[in-house]
């Protein structure tokens, strides 16, 4: 019998026991649904995080003082004063870091800001005029501070969207004086609504020239961070190396293990996020896969019952000319069809549920969460479900095909 006819025979066989067939595949349906949901949501989460990281720009390199933190309680590495003004100077030299296009030193912390009787506690960021370019946020009112203002420790501030709304709910903030640490600052710019990024909430910041912030707000002579932009994406790795060597020379370090700074790139962050979410997804998916195993055993069980029940049918088919191979194929087809049907239902349900969850996440939590249909997982699910049918159908099918026709026909 050819494959087409075997398929038809298998379908007829399944139709004859429709409700039992549907109950049998429940395990497969649940397993595949779970796998599709886990991968779809995992991919959605990954895309969300990666999107955040990418929005900073892939040419951006961050240099931070201290060691790479080894854990959330690794305080020493976070409060380090190893990045100084002289480092900024050597990094700016073309011969040291040739592909460096921009560099911005940053200091940050939290301080109370007051306007008349109102107070608010924004994140204070001391930076340069490059701030707007690097983070792609330009004041929609006012302007950015000038190089001259940086050099002259000017008392000017650019405030975030929420800071403005809190301190100046009804009035225009521009050119008003706000007080931080007893000093008056003139508001020269107001940033538009941007929201949370991976580092800080842009709506809750106040940006000062770094010189002013260092001297009058934080009283320090070091930096919390250098934000560097390479001249192209291709030169990022080279630039990272150049920065490393330059800073080691500047700090007189010969043993790389004693580095008092660390460098992060977007690529390394993306790598890390990708690895973490992939491992997590895989872990959850493999838990879901256990239900496939259970489903497969269910299939085997039902196929065994079916084979026993249909012993006479098998005997008759052999008596009128079916080969052992025909019978084997018929039962394998039945099993694989059944599980593939389960797989398809599971894929549809999984897609539906994860689409629903994506909607809830994006609407209720206002995340920029997009539904991703996991094509690869769906294909894999289909293959796995067919394989479950073939593997768990093999034993019953073998049993069915190996019987002698008259023995089967005599079966009561």
């Amino acid at each position, binding site marked *: *019998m*050819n494959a087409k*006819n075997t398929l038809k*025979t298998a379908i007829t066989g399944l139709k*004859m026991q429709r409700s039992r067939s549907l109950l049998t595949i429940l395990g497969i349906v649940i397993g595949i649904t779970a796998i599709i949901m886990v991968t779809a949501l995992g991919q959605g989460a990954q895309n969300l995080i990666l999107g955040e990281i990418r929005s900073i720009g892939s040419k951006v390199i961050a240099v931070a003082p201290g060691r790479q933190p080894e854990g959330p309680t690794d305080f020493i590495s976070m409060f380090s004063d190893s990045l100084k003004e002289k480092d900024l100077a050597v990094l700016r030299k073309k011969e040291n870091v040739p592909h460096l296009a921009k560099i911005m030193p940053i200091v940050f912390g939290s301080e109370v800001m007051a306007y008349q009787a109102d107070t608010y506690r924004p994140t204070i960021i001391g930076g340069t005029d490059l701030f707007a370019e690097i983070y792609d946020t330009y004041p929609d009112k006012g302007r950015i501070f000038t190089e001259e203002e940086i050099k002259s420790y000017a008392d000017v501030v650019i405030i975030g969207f929420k800071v403005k709304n809190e301190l100046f709910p009804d009035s225009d903030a521009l050119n008003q004086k706000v007080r931080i640490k007893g000093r008056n600052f003139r508001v020269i710019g107001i940033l538009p609504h941007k929201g949370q990024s991976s580092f800080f909430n842009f709506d809750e910041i106040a940006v000062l020239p770094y010189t002013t912030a260092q001297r009058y707000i934080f009283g320090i002579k070091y930096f919390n961070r250098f934000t560097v932009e390479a001249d192209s994406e291709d030169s990022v790795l080279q630039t990272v190396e150049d920065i490393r060597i330059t800073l080691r020379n500047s700090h007189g370090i010969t043993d790389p293990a004693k580095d008092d700074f660390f460098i992060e790139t977007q690529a390394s962050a993306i790598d890390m996020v990708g690895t973490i979410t992939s491992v997590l997804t895989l872990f959850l998916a493999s838990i879901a896969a256990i239900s496939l195993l259970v489903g497969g055993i269910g299939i085997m069980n039902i196929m065994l019952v079916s084979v026993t029940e249909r012993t*006479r*049918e098998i*005997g*008759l*088919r*052999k*008596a*009128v*000319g*079916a*080969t*052992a*191979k*025909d019978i084997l194929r018929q039962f394998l087809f039945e099993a694989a069809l059944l599980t593939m049907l389960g797989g398809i239902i599971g894929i549809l349900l999984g897609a539906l549920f994860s689409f629903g969850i994506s909607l809830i996440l994006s609407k209720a939590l206002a995340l920029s969460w997009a539904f991703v249909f996991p094509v690869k997982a769906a294909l894999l699910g289909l293959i796995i479900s067919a394989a479950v049918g073939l593997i768990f159908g093999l034993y019953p099918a073998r049993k069915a095909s190996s019987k*002698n*026709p*008259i*023995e089967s*026909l005599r079966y009561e």
Partner: protein
Amino acid sequence: MSENIFPLIRAKNLSKIYDGNFTETSALGGVSFDVEAGEFLAIMGPSGSGKSTLLHILGFLDKPTSGDYYFEGKKMEEFNDEELAGIRNKKMGFVFQSFNLLRRTALLENVKLPLKYAGIAEKEQDAMARRALAAVNLPEETFSHEPSQLSGGEQQRAAIARAIVNNPSIIFADEPTGNLDSKSGEIVMQTLQKLNNEGNTVILITHETFTAEYAQRIIRLLDGQIESDNRVSNRRFNGFIK
């Protein structure tokens, strides 16, 4: 050519022992005979004498415990599973004592079953199955009925239609008239007679002497042995003797 030297069927010392849990039953105890192509052979004998056992072996549905069975000059063991299935499908038609129709399956589909394994085009399958059902005098409206909706006689005739649908050259029939009234029984016997007249071999098990009267030869079994093997001349339809 092997056909010239060998008969269609040669049974040499066939024996069959069934293994029970505590006892062994010897159903056939060394049976030898030849059947030429075109013969109409009746096998008779009391219940339990081994008739069905013998017919199953001849029809490639069972294997003998010892002895040799030659089909068209070739030993049974020399055929592989696929060849055996092919011969069962194309050269042999088997009518079972208990019909063995597929339940919850229309008669037409039941009759088509051997054609599906023969790789015959679907359109042709339908025409062939209808012709076979008509040949056993089943009315058109029963074709779509399932076996449970039919009388025993109608089911028996459908089973015969299935046995002849692939134009086999040998028909094995295990008491094909056992469940039928004498009129239906006669229709069945006439169908077999017609097939035999067309040159096909018919091997039939029967209890009834009137049925055996269609045969040219009667083998009588007793306790798994051949008691007698006679050519018969008192044919019911003398006109059919060549």
